[in-house]
């Protein structure tokens, strides 16, 4: 994101990227950071120097930060974003089903012991934080984790919507064939009839189609 700001700047007459980021870029960064404001963030980690630094960085980003330690048996669900120390039993402490997360999750790898990629996979995390928390690493973690979480949610929403549309399309098809038979009209006319009814009644075309199918059932 910082790169993009720089790129915008480079579009100006002053030539390529050597120039430091000037005011317009700074403003851009600030605007981008606005999406972090008032984000409810939980930090579930020891309050040592590293933990303190992470809390401080998040507070500087204007997040609502809450510190939780020792690690609760169940990760609380009321936050937008959770930073949580990576432990062997973290997957069991996550209350949601993988694939249906209730918050964006960033696991904190303290950098000791062997790296367990399977464990990170099992947490279905949205990001990994490596100590020490710098302004840059904290911001990227927050932005990416939040971005992935929301994207996942949109995709799930899209699938639900597609499923619904599929059902609607079947209803419209059936209503259309009923109209063609009953009113002796062409397919196009039948479809336009459905659309006009939907517009006049301010309901969806699916609702009109279902009403026609249902009433046909009642009448026949």
């Amino acid at each position: 994101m910082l790169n993009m700001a720089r790129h915008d700047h480079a579009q100006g007459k002053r030539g390529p990227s050597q120039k430091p980021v000037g005011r317009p870029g700074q403003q851009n960064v600030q605007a981008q950071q606005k999406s972090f404001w008032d984000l409810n963030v939980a930090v579930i980690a020891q309050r040592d120097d590293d933990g303190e630094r992470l809390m401080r960085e998040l507070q500087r980003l204007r997040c609502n930060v809450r510190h939780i330690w020792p690690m609760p048996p169940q990760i609380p669900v009321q936050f937008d974003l959770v930073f949580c120390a990576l432990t062997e039993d973290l997957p069991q402490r996550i209350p949601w089903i993988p694939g249906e997360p209730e918050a964006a999750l960033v696991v904190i790898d303290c950098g000791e012991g062997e790296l367990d990629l399977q464990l990170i996979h099992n947490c279905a995390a949205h990001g990994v934080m490596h100590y020490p928390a710098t302004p840059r690493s904290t911001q990227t973690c927050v932005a990416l984790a939040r971005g992935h979480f929301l994207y996942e949610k949109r995709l799930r929403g899209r699938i639900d919507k597609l499923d619904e549309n599929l059902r609607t399309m079947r209803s419209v098809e059936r209503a259309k064939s009923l109209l063609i038979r009953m009113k002796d009209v062409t397919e196009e006319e039948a479809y336009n009839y459905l659309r006009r009814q939907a517009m006049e009644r301010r309901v969806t075309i699916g609702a009109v189609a279902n009403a026609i199918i249902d009433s046909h059932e009642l009448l026949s």
Partner: protein
Amino acid sequence: MTRSSNTSEPWRVGVLFSRSGFMAVIEETQLRGTLTAIDEINDKGGINGRPVEPIVYDPGSDSRSYGLYAKKLMVEDGVSTIFGCYTSSSRKAVLPVVERLDGLLWYPTLYEGFEFSSNVIYTGATPNQNSVQLCRTLMELYGTRFYFVGSDYIYPRESNRIMRELIRHSGGSVVGESYVRLGAERSAFTPVMRDIKQVRPDVIFSTVVGEATTFLYQAYADMGLDPKVTPIASLTTSEAEVRAMGFDVGEGHLTAAPYFQGVGNDSNTTFVNRYKKRYGDDEPTNMCLEASYFQVNVFAKTLEKTNSMETNLMRDSVMGSEFDAPQGGVSINPVWGHADLWTRIGRANRQGQFDIVYESPSSVKADPYLLGYGRCLEYS
């Protein structure tokens, strides 16, 4: 999760069927089908020299538990393949887990269709493999006025929607509809039966599942209705349910399924004999048990080739594969990851078995979104 090196370590797989709660009658048989197949494979020396080790949990007929146990299997037990689920609600609980953690669920139960996931292999029937022909046969034999009775959850609502379409397109009508709670008691069916007696339909189409199936058929018998005139037709009432309700109560009612114990072929005779030897002479087989059994065999054949349980390898390899199942030759349809299965309609007799009144000439391709049946379900 993925061990493909030279080792005798077992292949670990997850198994999720309820042995307790209101779904236990049928899911217990699915568990048996799964374990029977696994034992047979292990008796023959396992897969590429390694035995299959099932890790079994009992979700107790609670949908949410299916999701939690699926997570436990994948996260704690390190399993990537799960055999399990009967109800659609339990499948939908497992779906996000296998999708996010990239596992493979083998689902051996008929369901309402309209689903596709890269992380599921569906080996039970979809509506085009049972409902379409059932609707046709019922209209031919009994009449065009249908009454729907179902358990109140996804599968009955959705399959009734499809059945309604079929009936209407074929010039029939739905004259009544009742739903009872999933896990309903006996008393819930008294008002339903009174309503049916009053409406006098030609056929009762039931999507009641689990223990309540017994109550429905018994309430029907107690009401003095005659299955020769107004039978109950179902997609889920198998030999297991008929045994639970009593052979006299089940006699004369119809079920559409890919498999009945009475299917005549060598593969089935061997299957039935082995099953009886293990579980007792009066233990019948049924469609869900059979699907549970053959899907483990399809899995084994696939694993033999991949020698790895990695989901993408397994999935790529299983597509298009064929197996000589007790119901006849079946294959995994590569377009949908659903099995191409046989269509059969059976009428229950006094021995708790089904006499087959219709059988498809060959296996029927799975069409979970009913694409081939867009408009013309014309009664032919």
